[in-house]
């Protein structure tokens, strides 16, 4: 019965105040989000180099972008990084959440430990892992000291492997977050369902696999959304850990855009790559948001 309807407002103040209060944020959003999206879109169709200019140049920047080897390396890296990071963080997070859900002693302390990396800046994480993975005094030396004299670990400076170091650090930072989301989801499940399944004689792994995890579908999807989002936006970690290097071997679209637009004076190309990023995010987010908002309306 409680339709989300506007209620009656009386007098000038009550009728206009809400609109007035919302107006600044509305205008800021229109200008700084949608206006800027359009502006950036326009830039991507100009021949802007060091300084933006507004002369229409058609799709030359996109042609340049798609012809750029570096861009395709960045895209490929995003897929490698995104796939491994999302899959890995999801697997570790869900696994830990299930373990923690077994009425564990000191659960609070463990949870705190698993989640603290999320409070850190990616720059801090990157700096720390850069030190640990460095080929001189880091992991390699540790393994030598432990007697593995032939152990080498040079991923950080290896063109083929550097993107995987980003995966390692990102998983370390974000898997606790996945754990927290799923643990919250697990705690939200009606206990009587589990009891009913136990009475039916189902084993614990079977209960998780057949009943509990399927019930967490919504959590799974929102977590997936967030991880996708972190992956596509990922910039800080790559900058801190590898700087996109060696060369541009570990570039991702976000670092590609930054170097084109702000260090290499390729403004138009940077704008085109940013537009591509936006379209990718929109392709994932818009259907999700649409279903979420519709769902809320019907609830």
């Amino acid at each position: 019965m409680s339709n989300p309807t506007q209620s009656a407002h009386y007098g000038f103040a009550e009728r206009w105040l809400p609109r007035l209060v919302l107006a600044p944020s509305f205008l800021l959003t229109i200008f700084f989000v949608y206006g800027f999206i359009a502006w950036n879109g326009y830039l991507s169709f100009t021949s802007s180099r060091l300084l933006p200019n507004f002369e229409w140049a058609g799709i030359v920047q996109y042609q340049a972008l798609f012809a750029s080897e570096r861009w395709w390396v960045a895209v490929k890296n995003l897929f490698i990084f995104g796939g491994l990071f999302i899959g890995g963080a999801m697997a570790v997070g869900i696994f830990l959440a299930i373990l923690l859900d077994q009425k564990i002693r000191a659960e609070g302390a463990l949870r705190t430990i698993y989640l603290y990396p999320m409070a850190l800046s990616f720059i801090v994480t990157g700096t720390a892992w850069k030190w640990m993975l460095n080929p001189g005094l880091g992991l390699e030396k540790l393994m030598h000291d432990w007697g593995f004299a032939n152990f080498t670990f040079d991923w950080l400076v290896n063109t083929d492997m550097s993107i995987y170091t980003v995966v390692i650090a990102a998983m370390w930072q974000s898997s606790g977050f996945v754990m927290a989301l799923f643990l919250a989801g697990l705690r939200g499940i009606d206990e009587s369902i589990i009891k009913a399944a136990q009475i039916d004689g189902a084993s614990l792994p079977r209960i998780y696999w057949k009943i509990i995890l399927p019930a967490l579908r919504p959590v799974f999807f929102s977590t997936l959304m967030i991880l996708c989002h972190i992956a596509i936006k990922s910039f800080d970690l790559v900058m801190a850990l590898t700087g996109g290097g060696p060369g541009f071997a570990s570039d991702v679209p976000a670092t590609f855009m930054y170097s084109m637009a702000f260090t290499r004076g390729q403004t138009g190309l940077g704008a085109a790559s940013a537009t591509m990023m936006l379209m990718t995010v929109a392709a994932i987010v818009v259907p999700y948001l649409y279903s979420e908002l519709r769902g809320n309306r019907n609830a």
Partner: protein
Amino acid sequence: MGALAIKNVTKNFGDTHILKGIDIEIESGQFLILVGPSGCGKSTLMNIIAGLESPSTGEVHIGGRMVNNVAPKDRDIAMVFQSYALYPTMNVRQNIAFGMETRGVPKKEQDEIIARVAKMLQMDHLLDRKPSQLSGGQRQRVAMGRALARDPILFLFDEPLSNLDAKLRVEMRTEIKQLHHRLKTTIVYVTHDQIEAMTLGDKIAVMKDGVIQQFGSPQDIYEQPANLFVASFIGSPSMNFIPCHLAEQNGALGVSLQSEGEARFIALPQAAKLVGAVGKKVILGIRPEQFDVVIDSGDSLACKVHLTEPTGPDTMVLTQLNGVEVCARLHPRDAKGPGETVRLQPDVSKAVLFDAETEARLA
């Protein structure tokens, strides 16, 4: 003009018509019940009276004044909500004082009013507690106290008892009724509970689909329901509805009832109103208490008991008439067990008849 008059009020949201022309008028001091199933528009009507929503068309008059363009706070009303709507961060005293503070009532007067209300509702000892420290019944009481402190010309109660457990609900119901007797205030009370409606109301408006189905005294509505919906909504267990054909036999109008292969023609005393309807499909409405157990008589039927539901003072006996389930409220002494046969005689003098198609009452 009375304390509250609602004139041809409608409410639309786009193409959805929530209220389709409501007319109600009550006198000062009356207790008006708006009752109906959820979605019938009663809460919307309440909000319109309070001024929290505005009607699409029509007028609302409170105390003889047209209030369509008057803000809720200036309508001289007070409201008790289903969730009590107590301000959670304020204690009871502050909850009651908040409105007076806003209206600029002097502090001294505020204290007097709070003291008076607290005494009236026996909640002096609760004044310094936060709502979260109160039981459901106590919260209910504070919500009423907050309304009383306002001393308005019209009280609005929006399902105030639905969040209480069964026992407390009955107690608070009595208390509200006593309060009404004592204060002689005008009250509009929304509920979906027909027992609350019957016990509290001077006037009941039964609503469905945004239309008032019937407006009258509780007794009227119980005995003379305007249509099949009202008859089924008011009364528990519900009225029995038995499909029949209206026929004429030996100069008398009546219906045929069948049970266990045995058929009886039962003449209806309301014949005068039914002349035009002979041969039509009708629905005979008989309340469960309108059955008597007899040894044998011309109008009684042998009925096989399917199930019994003892309630203590009465036992509900379920059986079949004309192929539909029928409930009879019998004295436990007369009730037989399942599988046994009991002879029932319907008291048709109080029975009502509905047109099977339009569902309107014929007699």
